[in-house]
């Protein structure tokens, strides 16, 4: 009912409406880039502080001092740190993430498939988790303080409170061992048909959904409840709208900014925080890859993965910021 009527005239001030938004969005993006550069410095510095020598790690304990010195020279390890940083950064900007020490493979090539796998899993977990969390939040507000609200909150909090590995193994026990509906190990390979792929990731996606659900649900509930005190909600009630229509049409649009924020934080978690779940289900994603190479002390891989995770985190938060700006009618339609 509140959709735009057809054939409405262009509103006054349409021409200049974009300027404050464009400025704010540009500011956010610029901030994000600066932040990402700062993170890259931290990652680089962090790996420099770690004990151990790359040349030693490559050649092993039996290497002669001469061969160590040669390799250091060859890898540019004798250059000052800032030169090595810029060389590393320059490589990343041109798509060269370096070479893994442990396997000698090109990191960019091996990450590509893994990143795609992780995004695939995160995407389907989000497709289930985000709408479910928001709908549950709306229902909790509708029946606030009643048994429905308490049941939703209780179950969601319980599923979040259990550690991921526990949730994962419980799912495996029921759905893979007892009923054998889904595989316990999420093997995927190139050229796997879509249906099989979905079946393979069903359990890890379910585990992730259960883990992130409560946070988004509780935040949706709190944000809408906050708005429910407003005079315009009373106006809507006094128009005779049903309780659910009041929440959906009048409360929810004004609570959207905090909800987007928490959704984005959880999406970021789905991508960068899936390490445990990927390990449980032996899923060939970024998390697995990172864990493998941390144990092998493969510094270039850890740096590259860390930077990618940081980029994902920062970009999703920028998107959340921008969405919150665009959702604000005062900014979209200045006076």
């Amino acid at each position, binding site marked *: 009912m*509140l959709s735009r009527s057809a054939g409405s005239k262009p509103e006054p001030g349409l021409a200049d409406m974009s300027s404050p938004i464009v400025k704010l969005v540009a500011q956010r993006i610029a901030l994000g880039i600066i932040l990402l550069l700062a993170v890259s410095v931290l990652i680089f510095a962090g790996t420099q502080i770690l004990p151990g020598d790359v040349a030693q790690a490559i050649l092993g304990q039996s290497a002669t001092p001469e061969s160590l010195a040669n390799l250091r020279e060859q890898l540019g390890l004798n250059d000052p740190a800032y030169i090595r940083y810029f060389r590393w950064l320059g490589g990343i900007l041109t798509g060269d993430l370096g070479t893994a020490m442990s396997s000698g493979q090109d990191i960019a090539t091996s990450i590509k498939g893994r990143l795609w796998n992780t995004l695939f899993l995160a995407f389907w977990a989000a497709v289930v988790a985000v709408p479910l969390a928001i709908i549950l939040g709306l229902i909790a507000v509708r029946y606030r303080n009643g048994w429905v609200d308490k049941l939703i909150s209780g179950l969601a909090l319980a599923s979040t409170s259990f550690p991921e590995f526990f949730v994962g193994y419980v799912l495996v026990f029921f759905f893979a061992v007892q009923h054998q509906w889904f595989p316990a190990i999420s093997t995927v390979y190139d050229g796997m048909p879509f249906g099989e792929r979905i079946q393979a990731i069903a359990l890890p996606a379910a585990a992730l959904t259960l883990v992130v659900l409560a946070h988004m649900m509780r935040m949706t509930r709190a944000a809408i409840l906050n708005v429910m005190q407003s005079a315009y909600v009373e106006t809507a009630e*006094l128009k*005779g709208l049903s309780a659910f229509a009041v929440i959906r049409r*009048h409360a929810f649009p004004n609570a959207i900014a905090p909800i987007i924020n928490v959704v984005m934080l959880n999406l970021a978690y789905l991508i960068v925080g899936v390490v445990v779940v990927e390990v449980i289900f032996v899923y060939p994603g970024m998390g697995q890859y990172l864990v493998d190479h941390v144990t092998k002390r493969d510094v270039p891989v850890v740096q590259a993965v860390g930077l990618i995770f940081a980029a994902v985190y920062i970009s999703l938060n920028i998107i959340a910021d921008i969405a919150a700006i665009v959702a604000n*009618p005062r900014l979209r339609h200045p006076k």
Partner: protein
Amino acid sequence: MADKQPKPGQPKPGQPRSGVLLDIRNLRIEATVYPPGEAPKNIVLVHDVSLTLEKGKVLGLIGESGAGKSTIGLSSMGYGRGGVRITGGEVILNGRDILKGGNEGFRKLRGREVCYVAQSAAAAFNPAHRLMDQVVEAALLHGTATRAEAEKRAVALFKKLSLPNPESIGERFPHQVSGGQLQRVMTAMALCSEPDLIVFDEPTTALDVTTQIDVLAAIKDAIRDTHVAALYITHDLAVVAQVSDEIMVLRHGRLVEWGGTRQIIKEPRQEYTNALVSVHEIEHQEQKPGTSPFLSVKNITAAYGRSHIKVLKNVSVDIFPGQTLAVVGESGSGKSTLARAITGLLPPEQGTVTFDGRPLANRLADRPKEDLRQLQMIYQMADVAMNPRQTVGTIIGRPLEFYFGMRGRERDKRVAELLDKIEMGKGYIDRYPAELSGGQKQRVCIARSLAAKPKLIICDEVTSALDPLVAHGILELLLGLQKEENVAYLFITHDLATVKSIADSIAVMYRGEVVRYGAKSTVLTPPFDAYTDLLLSSVPEMEIGWLEKAIKGRRMASAGN
């Protein structure tokens, strides 16, 4: 369309009093309160109130805050704000008791048979949706019109309510429209679904007087032309006298008096009504300005942030010891900004503030403690100007410690003296602000500012949030304290009656400029400039027909609506 469908419960032939639209019988409304540290208890908000309203008539509900006006008004929609419950009586609308219909029944009548116009339209419109979508929402929900029909009707109503650009104003968002306009759009929203009854809940209280008069006239015309009945809730008798056929006076949830508008304002039968009706002007003889002002504002220009819009333009005023300068004007005229410039909260771009013959530092941070002590402030919202976790003793004692280093018994003695001065007594020393009434809270704020022994107290709309009788007490207290302590006031207000009661000199502000300035008698004596004339003629008078006369006699249209 609405007219053709018989509404549920339309009075059947032969039913008694067929002209009656709303018949409330022995209404009892209760709420549960949860006092801190005590068991929850039931309080009765409305005791056994009955009223009837005929079709097309306007009944004014009047009383101070807590009288139960809004509670009774909302009961006609079966609505209880914040856990308020209707526990007894009948609310008969169009011949049926709506309290028997349950939630489903309430939803069907809200927005269809009864609509609501809230005090603050700015808060009552959803900021996320365009005005038109909100205006036609109830009509579409209840199926009384198609979207095209409802929009057409809305545009016609916008025209009737003299809104600018009636064709396109619906495309705007609430924040793009001024407060006075929003109040009229809200009236259009209530009229759009062609209800039988509209509940107006203080629809003009939040507006400037110059805007109020236009909105009031628009509402009155709309009621007359659409033949809708109305419950008009307000605390301002002069306003309600302009629009009502009958007036009901309420106090503490009980009926005091109910009669025709003329009878209530001309021949009130009850003592309380008489107290409300009689004019409470305090006779205040203006003092001649002294030889030299102790505080002098010279050519101040100020803006917020790096904005090019000057909020103060070349403002100059003088304040004399022990006297009151009243600053009047509508919202946005720069009254409070002037106070901020004097106190250093907003350093002016140009101009100086001279105090005792020497210039004051522009910025608050650059002023010595002694200068801070000499200028104190009291605010409109006393309850948010005090820390709710501190007792009255701590609140008043703080400036004593801060400026004079008083401690222990010495401080407590002084706090007790100050409490005596504000006519509250030392029994209040351990109370928390939440335990005080609105008037008492403001008195504590006055005591706190007096504790610093200042030369000037800036009073920013200090009586605006109070009921008239309570405000009257505060003004008398301020006048008495001025005599005792020889303190000067810079009294900011939009209420001209208050100005007459307290001022020695007056500055009229309009869009950041002082348009008229001088001794009270000079400023309030004709010939007036156009703006002062508008301001003075917009103050409602308790006289039937004043509204039409005032609108006719205006020389200048008000700007802010």
